[in-house]
């Protein structure tokens, strides 16, 4: 029962934040001149020739509140404008590029969380011992690394020095041609998943080969982040009374750590999942650009360079929504696991 009222309260809190995001994006939009903004209202490339008529139709020279009304009606109808950098409506482009980014996340998220927590726990259990110092130093070095530089270095070594071992982009040219032919059904546009569904092992191998370096680049910085949180959370759990009680009962170190401390230490880690997703999204923008991996991040950077404003703002709106919804899920999960949160 309390859970339901908590969910309702939390959903209501979502509304002002989403409205705020929309206001913020509208504010950024006002920084552009009317001709540039006109592209936001285009549904069909032919309209691009008659920009003046769009400016009149959507009142782009009128006061801000009038403009806001016309803009928000379009956005609520799902029309985010036309992305001239790839000749596609922004809403379509989001769906077109999303699977590639999801594919990156399918691999990056579990690896980041698993290794991050592992290292954090090892570090905490061996507090102030050499293992702890080494893992902590590595973590500091990890989040001091510029993501783009790590990507370039990995390419230099694993694509250049070991010629063609782990190539950039999403697929090799020949495989790409096959994937786009009629012999291959693209169920999800997530290459690895489609390859399995089509039963084409060699496509799967090629896709995996192309994923190694981007996933490695994306995870390193974020592993360092998770490791830090896991370490401090584990240290806190190890200092609790029930750990002393478990030790006093004569339980061995392994049981105390795995059964008692780690489970309780995991709860606070869930709360930073929102930050992790935000970090991974920012990392994806850089990683996809470095590896010419055509996903959402690659598209947004390309759009920003070509001043494709609808694309950039559509992307920002999408990211904001994703992060807000992630935070909502995190909060609900947290409340579900830990009753103190929803009752407090």
């Amino acid at each position, binding site marked *: 029962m309390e859970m339901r009222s908590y969910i309702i309260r939390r959903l209501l809190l979502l509304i002002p934040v989403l409205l705020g995001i929309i206001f913020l994006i509208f504010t*950024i939009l006002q920084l552009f001149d009317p001709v540039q903004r006109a592209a936001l209202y285009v549904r069909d490339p032919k309209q691009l020739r008659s920009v003046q008529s769009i400016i009149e139709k959507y009142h782009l020279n009128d006061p801000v509140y009038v403009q806001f009304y016309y803009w928000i009606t379009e956005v609520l109808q799902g029309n985010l404008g036309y992305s001239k950098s790839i000749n596609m409506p922004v809403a379509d482009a989001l769906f077109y590029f999303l699977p590639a980014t999801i594919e990156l996340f399918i691999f990056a998220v579990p690896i980041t969380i698993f290794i991050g927590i592992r290292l954090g726990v090892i570090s905490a259990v061996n507090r102030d011992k050499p293992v702890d110092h080494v893992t902590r130093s590595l973590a*500091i070095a990890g989040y001091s690394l*510029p*993501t783009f530089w790590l990507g*370039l270095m990995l390419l230099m070594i694993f694509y250049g020095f070991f*010629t063609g071992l782990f190539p950039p982009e999403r697929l090799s040219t020949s495989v790409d041609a096959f994937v786009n032919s009629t012999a291959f059904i693209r169920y999800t546009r997530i290459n690895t998943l489609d390859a399995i569904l089509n039963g084409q092992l060699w496509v799967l191998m090629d896709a995996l080969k192309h994923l190694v370096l981007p996933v490695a680049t994306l995870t390193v910085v974020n592993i360092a982040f998770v490791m830090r949180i896991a370490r401090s959370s584990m240290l806190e759990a190890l200092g609790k009374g029930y750990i002393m009680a478990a030790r006093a009962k004569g339980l061995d170190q392994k049981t105390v750590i795995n059964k008692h401390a780690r489970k309780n230490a995991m709860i606070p880690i869930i709360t930073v999942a929102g930050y992790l997703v935000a970090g991974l999204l920012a990392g994806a923008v*850089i990683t996809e650009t470095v590896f010419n991996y055509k996903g959402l991040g690659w598209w947004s950077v390309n759009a920003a*360079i070509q001043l494709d404003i609808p694309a950039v703002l559509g992307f920002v709106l999408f990211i904001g929504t994703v992060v807000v919804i992630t935070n909502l899920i995190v909060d609900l999960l947290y409340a579900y696991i830990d009753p103190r949160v929803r009752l407090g």
Partner: protein
Amino acid sequence: MKRQTRWQRFKTNIQPRIKELKFSLRRIRGSPLSIVGIAIILFFAIIAILAPVLAPPEYPDKPYRIPRDGFSPTPRPPSEKHQFGTTEGQFDIYYGVIWGTRTAFTVALMVVGATVVIGIILGSIAGYYGGIIDEIIMRITDIFFAFPHLILAMAFVTAFGASLDSVMKALILVWWPSYARLIRAEVLTVREEDYVEAAKSIGSSDFRIIVKHVLPNSIYPILVMASLDMGAVVLVAAALSFLGLGAPVGYADWGQMASFSRNWIVGPPGEPLAYWYTVVIPGLFIFFFVLGWNLLGDAFRDILDPKLRRR
């Protein structure tokens, strides 16, 4: 006579602070990581200060313009004339990274300085007065927290037009909410302390209470965060420049130097690492600069926090 009493009062007032500072310095000396961090930062500071000596500018009125030696696209390896080689377009890498150090310090100090000031103003207003003002300021920070710094900054830079000034403006716009929140939380914890109550009861103004009592007691967390952010800001600024949204072509900037290497990751057949210097050198500068601030910030966190350190 009066002057002397004032001096004496000053002396008694300052004594505990000096003692505290000495204690902090002793703790810093005992922590090898913070020493390494300080050494790295000092090293970069010296490079930045001595830039005109280390790399005399070719155009004295525009020292941030990297001199070019021809226009050939192929990078050239380190030589007598170009200590670190040249990038594509024959920009001198040595000159670029030396003056790029100044760029990095400028960006970091401007952005962190401005966001700390904005954060102190908005955070102390929100925390000290509470109520509706607090609610409004905090809901605005919520909106900014829905975006990764890099992605929102990207949108602002696109709106302002790609340049280093735009990068700094955009970073200030996306970064201030963290300080506003931190300072608000600090103000909330000290607001109810007895010494604030005492100051109120003798009729101190709100401004005096905030400046004299609240802020000095929340300075350490701000210092820790500012130190970590000096590195983080440079990382995001470098990423924006790398993506082509930052400094104009030929401006001494580490992120842009790294972006020049993108077409030269793999050398000609037979010598795949032929152009290593275009990739490795600018990246190392960014990495060590950020590492220095992170080491310092991390050590500060353990050392400076008065609640943790005397345990």
